[in-house]
């Protein structure tokens, strides 16, 4: 749906996307209309517009207003902060103040949209394009509906987007505080800690080492001290301090119920009810103690489910991507976290959709619309198949657990892995194998570049596996310029070694990106005595 509105914006939308004021007033009006509609629907229709969880939050706020613990409300599994923020929902007159939380969530939504807009511009997107892409979030009816129905996800999204914004703007202390707060609110944002930490490279790179190793003895300590630059230390300190301060104060106020419902509950929950997660049926089976010894009862695979999830989202993805693009790393991390999670409901999708407007502009999904539409189609189709099985179970009372729900959740999982692979391999325009289809022409690379074969494989291994003709073509421009670039780079480096003045940093970065792994070969070409 998001891609659709983006790739072929209807005329009305297009006109809204001309200036920030018109976009934001459109976003605001959309939410006001939905809020008012919700009030009408709640008062007159048997089906409620307001989310069930909103009742949980407001009940908890009411308990707080009476001086009780919010955890007296069953299924309140959030930080007391949320109930505190919603205290105004208990004020009189109720018909006005009860909607305070929905308005707050909607405003958070818009704030998140504004930060998307800012981050996009910071990343060099033109204002028009930035407007268009932040419109994906701001004018998205799904997003607006979720927040105006009173789901707290909007609040979380604004925190996560603020976290990205603060990091991109290099407000390190602020981003640390935001991370601590977000993790306190909902545990999962802790995964961003790794990628932000990894991305906090010194703003101006140190004078690059000569091609030949100078430091022969690098102790672990010195490497650690190089890694732990000031930014990283500030980030670690502020995030840990915020997180601990919030938890300690909440524990002091509400004691064990706070720990139990906010955190420990997630360790003991059974999660047997049907949801999108691939583990779902397995969890139902094992929770009912039906896994007999003939199967693998002693192994209890489901208890190891956190391993692939955390290995991907907190280790492999941040380490390999966050250096090149933090938003893409955060998108991939969240996507991996949600895909490999033991529970997955549609509100979790919002967690990664927030990053989409920032990722999309330079993404292969836009450069290659066929692929973009295939991804969107597969994602929607995967959900539709599952939802149909879920409908048969939930409404018609048919036993569709196996094979229906099981296979459709695995199918949706496979689709998500495929999409995750695309996001991971997408190095943006100019990246390997994923750039826009270049002009025709086919040349052999000179044999002095021993990596040629690997490169070619990579081009093929890229996202566009399904379109072989294109991937063959992609390496061409690189091949044509590679020799020149190598020569230039060598010249530049020699000059730099002599004068100590680097040629324009942006140029260099671009060459680095273009040359990619050819640089290893270049290094071997530059002899130490030169």
């Amino acid at each position, binding site marked *: 749906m998001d891609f659709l509105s983006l790739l072929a914006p209807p005329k009305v939308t297009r006109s809204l996307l001309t200036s920030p004021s018109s976009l934001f007033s459109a976003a605001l009006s959309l939410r006001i209309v939905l809020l008012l509609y919700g009030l009408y629907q709640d008062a*007159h229709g*048997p089906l409620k517009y307001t989310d*069930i969880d909103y*009742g949980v939050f407001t*009940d908890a706020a009411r308990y707080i207003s009476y001086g009780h613990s919010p955890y007296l409300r*069953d299924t309140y599994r959030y930080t007391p902060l949320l109930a505190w923020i919603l205290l105004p929902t208990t004020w009189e007159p109720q018909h006005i103040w009860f909607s305070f939380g929905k308005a707050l969530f909607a405003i958070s939504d818009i704030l998140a949209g504004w930060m998307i807009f800012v981050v996009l511009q910071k990343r060099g997107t033109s204002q028009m394009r930035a407007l268009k892409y932040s419109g994906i979030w701001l004018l998205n009816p799904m997003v607006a509906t979720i927040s105006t129905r009173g789901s707290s996800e909007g609040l979380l999204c604004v925190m996560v987007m603020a976290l990205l914004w603060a990091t991109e703007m290099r407000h390190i202390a602020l981003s640390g505080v935001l991370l601590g707060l977000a993790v306190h609110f909902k545990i999962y944002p802790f995964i961003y800690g790794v990628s932000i930490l990894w991305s906090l*490279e010194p703003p101006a*790179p*140190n004078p*690059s*080492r000569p091609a030949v190793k100078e430091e022969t003895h*690098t102790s672990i300590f010195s490497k650690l001290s*190089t890694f732990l630059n000031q930014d990283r230390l500030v980030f670690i300190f502020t995030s840990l301090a915020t997180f601990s301060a919030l938890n300690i104060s909440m524990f002091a106020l509400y004691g064990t119920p706070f720990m139990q419902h906010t955190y420990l509950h997630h360790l003991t*929950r*059974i999660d*047997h*009810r049907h949801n999108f997660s*691939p*583990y779902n*049926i*397995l969890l139902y*089976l094992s929770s*009912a103690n*039906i896994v007999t010894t003939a*199967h693998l009862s002693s192994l209890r695979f489901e208890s190891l*489910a956190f391993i*692939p999830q955390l*290995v991907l989202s907190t280790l*492999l993805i941040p380490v*390999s*991507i966050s*250096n*090149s693009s933090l938003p893409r790393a955060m998108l991939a991390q969240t996507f991996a976290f949600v*895909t*490999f999670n033991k529970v997955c409901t549609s509100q979790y999708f919002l967690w990664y959709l927030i990053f989409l407007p920032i990722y999309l502009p330079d993404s292969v999904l836009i450069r290659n619309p066929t692929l973009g539409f295939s991804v969107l189609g597969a994602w929607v189709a995967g959900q539709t198949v599952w939802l149909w099985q879920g409908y048969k*179970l*939930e*409404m018609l*009372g*048919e*036993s569709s*657990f*196996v*094979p229906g729900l*099981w296979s459709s959740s695995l199918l949706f*999982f496979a689709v*998500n*892995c*495929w999409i*995750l*692979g695309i996001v*991971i*391999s997408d190095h943006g325009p100019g990246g*390997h194998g994923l750039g826009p289809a270049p002009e025709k022409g086919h040349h052999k690379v000179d044999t002095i570049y021993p990596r040629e074969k*690997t490169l070619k494989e*990579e081009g093929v291994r890229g996202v566009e596996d399904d379109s072989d003709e294109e991937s063959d073509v992609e390496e061409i421009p690189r091949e044509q310029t590679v020799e020149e670039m190598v020569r230039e780079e060598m010249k530049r480096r020699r000059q730099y070694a002599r004068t100590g003045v680097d040629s324009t940093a942006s140029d260099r970065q671009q060459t680095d990106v273009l040359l990619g*792994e*050819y640089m*290893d070969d270049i*290094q071997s070409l530059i002899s130490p005595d030169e």
Partner: protein
Amino acid sequence: MRRRSTFLHDPKLEVDPRQLYLSGDRFVIENLRAAREERLTVGLDELPEELCQVLRQSHELHIRWASEDIYDAIPPFVSKISPGLHVFYTPLQRQSGDLLCPLLHKVFSSTLKCRSPLSTFTTPHLRSGRFASTSSLQYHSLLPSLNSLTQYIQRYLCKHSDQQCLHSAPLLNVADTVDIDYDSISHILIFTAHWSRPPAVLYDPLTGRTAENGWSLSVDTSANAEKVEVGVLGNEPPTDPSEISLSGFLTVVGEDDHPKPTLFSFPSRHHALPPSQSQDQRYKVSFLQPTGLHPKMQISFPTASALKPPANKPADSACALHTYLTLPSALFADKYQLSATADTAFMQSHHLTALRAISGETDLEAPDYVVEKWGSNLLVELAVPPPSSSSRKLARSTPPNQVPDSSSRGWNVTIPLHLRYFPPSPTGYSTIDIPNPILFWACTAEEGTKFPVNPFDRVNLGYEGLFGGRTMFYHLDPAPGPDLGAAGRGEEGSGRGKLVQRIRVPVLNMEAWGAEWVEWGTVAVVMLGFLWVVCKLWASGLSVRGEAGPKGVGGRPVEADAREEEEEEEEHEREKKKKK
């Protein structure tokens, strides 16, 4: 032991004095068509030790059982409870009472879901603290038959020589309700059984006679009874609407030389509706199809316009229609969904006024196989059709699935419920039986009304404690319906319908294609997906490493550094070796 036998005959049927007579210490009844209540009051010393042990741990123990068959109630035996076994229990100490469940298993059924009162029983929700006599713990289970109790009585309670005891016990198999009450103040156990009509065939071992559709029996004092009273009574029109009047004959066997005519009145907590109203307000319980995972229980009345407060209530009494549900743990109501203040439009669409009380297992998330409690109870006030007979208004408030026919428009109430998950089964489905709820008009009684003077008063039913002490209950009758028993349980039903609904719960089908591969399949697919993503990362990592190479320390991947170090170390070692 004391015994009180009461026969309540239809007021239209005149009792012929020749049907009742005393012959010495024996009171003889011949072919009497009447409802019967038998009440035995027993001291602890007359009971076997295993019962006494449990009772000594109890502060209060009230057991109620009701048949699953529909029966006609006659005042004063009109109070209703959902079918099955109800236990209301207050232990002397919180930790005591561990013997209760084993005893219930032995006496009533070995399959009862009962581990211990603390883990299985629920705590009734008291809206008003005014009615303090309610027990602290509550339990229910469906129990179609009292066979097990009959056998227990015959084996452990009857003396081997006591022919009357041995022969009377099986009568419990056709009883409509059985109550057992004990409290630690009086130290006596009261056992009450009620039959709404005589059994089809009855054999009296003492007289050797057989009667059909009538009570023919003789009551004597010989069997270790201190006192035996027999009453043969009929209803009289009461002078006060909150009272019940009875007339007939009372006899103390062994003391009186002839049945003594009597007429007496007493205030009553439980009432029946007048016959015409009772007919019009008969309700039918069903589940809307398909039930899915969120079954809706529907209570339907034949005529909306007849749904009016009882005509026999006191003039200044205010009444409201209520239903009291007893739900097994398989099924639950979401108290937040039903809370009246939050959503009146939703409640109105179901013709509900408010959820008045809910207790028991109301966890919204737990599957049935981890729930320890037996289930839950809820008291819901129902909406009644608007009093003005403006047909337009009515038509709008009638659910769309009903034909709006002005003459015989019905009234449907639906109660949204939710199913828990059940363990997998080889068919993909499990069935659960749900006792029908009971319905009554709760009406206020005058100040100073003293119900306990009623010799037939019945309390500890679960719902009366949720109201104030001076509340009268006008019970509605269930409409005869299709007999579940014949099809469902494979038993002979009464032919008038069962007070139990059976619904089908979808569960994981163990025989379905792929079921045996769930574990391996899931693990394999997750591993494949994981490896796919790792491959992608590795492939893109290769190119990133290439890019990062010349950028210097910061941009260098850790592995590269590590590898270099290893190489360096190896070189050092080689050099060392050379030096050696």
